[in-house]
């Protein structure tokens, strides 16, 4: 087998392993389905009435943002799963096998994409049920928005992979994810227009990649004027992958149990 064919085969074996566990861990399935639905319902019906989005229904404003947030956090199970694998010594076993060095992480991040597709279906279903609709969007714009969301999710899978490999336990990974990254999604245009934020926070929100990506997805789906050009969002997402994928693989090569 060539090195490339070997890498592909190893990656697929491990992606299959990650997907096989989902039906056996119902809590994971909940993370991918019920949790995003809960967020949509909370924001549309609890906060929605109090948030002012001039020119747009809140549900139309919210759905692109909440999809961006849910997909970005889809990779969170990678942080938990890798921290668990390190702790249990499974990473030791993989590292002692004559397999591709990137396969464990590639398998993880690729299976995350599959699971994020499942989340997308659930999110759109609940979104349409709550009254969301595309505004002046053609098929290629809808697809461009979907691709951007999945790419962001892929980038965050690598960020979460790095967090998982640096965590001594799934609990630590959980704490890092929720204290370091979760607030970033709120300091952005995901849930509210940044114009409503006070000085200081607004400037942070404006350079937040979550804002760039949410605004780009909105401009694809509900025809808002994109505050930043759409291609900047793609560049930012590719930059995140280019930075965090090599860092995660480098960490994988030296990570040790205990």
């Amino acid at each position: 087998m060539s090195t490339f064919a070997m890498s592909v085969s190893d990656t697929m074996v491990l992606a299959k392993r990650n997907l096989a566990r989902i039906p056996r861990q119902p809590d994971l399935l909940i993370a991918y389905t019920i949790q995003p639905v809960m967020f949509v319902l909370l924001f549309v019906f609890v906060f929605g009435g109090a948030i002012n989005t001039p020119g747009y229904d809140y549900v139309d404003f919210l759905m692109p943002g909440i999809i961006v947030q849910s997909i970005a956090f889809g990779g969170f199970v990678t942080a938990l799963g890798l921290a668990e694998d390190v702790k249990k010594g499974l990473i030791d076993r993989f590292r002692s096998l004559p397999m591709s060095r990137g396969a464990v992480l590639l398998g993880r991040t690729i299976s995350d994409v599959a699971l994020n597709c499942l989340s997308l279906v659930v999110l759109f279903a609940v979104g349409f049920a709550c009254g969301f609709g595309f505004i002046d969007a053609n098929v290629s714009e809808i697809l461009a928005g979907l691709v951007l969301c999945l790419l962001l999710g892929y980038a965050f899978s690598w960020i979460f992979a790095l967090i998982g490999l640096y965590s001594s336990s799934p609990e630590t990974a959980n704490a890092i994810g929720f204290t370091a990254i979760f607030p970033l999604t709120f300091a952005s245009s995901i849930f509210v227009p940044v114009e409503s934020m006070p000085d200081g926070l607004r400037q942070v929100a404006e350079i937040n990649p979550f804002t760039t990506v949410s605004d780009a997805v909105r401009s694809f789906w509900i025809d808002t004027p994109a505050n930043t050009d759409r291609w900047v969002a793609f560049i930012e997402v590719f930059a995140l992958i280019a930075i965090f994928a090599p860092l995660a693989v480098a960490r994988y090569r030296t990570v040790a149990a205990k």
Partner: protein
Amino acid sequence: MGRETDDAIVVEGLKKSYGSVQALCGVDFAARTGTVLGLLGPNGAGKTTAVRILSTLLKPDGGSARVVGLDVVDDAAALRAKIGLAGQYAAVDENLTGFENLEMVGRLYHLNRKEARERADELLERFDLVEAAKRPAKTYSGGMRRRLDLAAALVFRPPVLYLDEPTTGLDPVSRLSMWEMLEARTAAGTTVLLTTQYLDEADRLADRIVVIDHGIVIAEGTSDELKDQVGGERLDVRLEDDADAERAVAALAEIAESRPSFDDGVVHAPIRRRSGIIAEAVRRLDDANVGIDDIAVRRPTLDDVFIALTGHKAEAEPAEAEPAGEEARAA
């Protein structure tokens, strides 16, 4: 020297530290092809570090290690196809079934799907896991997980097998069945490096034993050679009355190799075993009017060896060092 070619594992001057903690301070040992080398030492002695270096998981700070002629650093990728690793962590995926775990490992060794499945079935049978094959590993007992972990290490029939404390934490029955599986396996010509903190385990399974403590090798040899280092057999006589101690020591002095000692109600007399020695000892003690509670000829155990070499017990904290160790070392 012919040694190089006959040895599957050759470790020379191996060093590794974590920050200021020196885990290995220049360790040398070798394992002949097809034998079991026991790496014996207490917790924190450096055993696991050595295994991690030999299985290419960790780079050494100094020294070298070659396994089946391959350098653990320079030829790491090629070496991974020659080794199997199993141990105390029982590294199996708990959400996969026993069969799926073994199939996955087979696929990662690049067996094709059919080969991987056949091999998985074969190993499940050999390790008595057929009934549990379709259950997720999280439902397995500790002993079953270890067996599955060992089976995973054997998927590719590696010429070299590392077993890092394979029975730590197992109940006595599981330990015994694990030993039987290991004995059956090691008879097949595989070179095995076994780390353990259990002396009886090393005694039973290993052809040669390297005793390691605080990152250095403190003794090496067969189980018998190590036991001989602390001296030969001795006669232990438990007295009915401690007041008889002096008379008992005097009575046994003539048949002993050196002067018997008295300690905690027991007279220890170093002897050379020969037929009739117990009868003779009983007669002499009887003549001296010494009441005997119990009498036995005792061969030193690896426990005695460990205490003699390190001044502390293998399974205890160094703080619990016993003065008896110092005496034995002087002997």
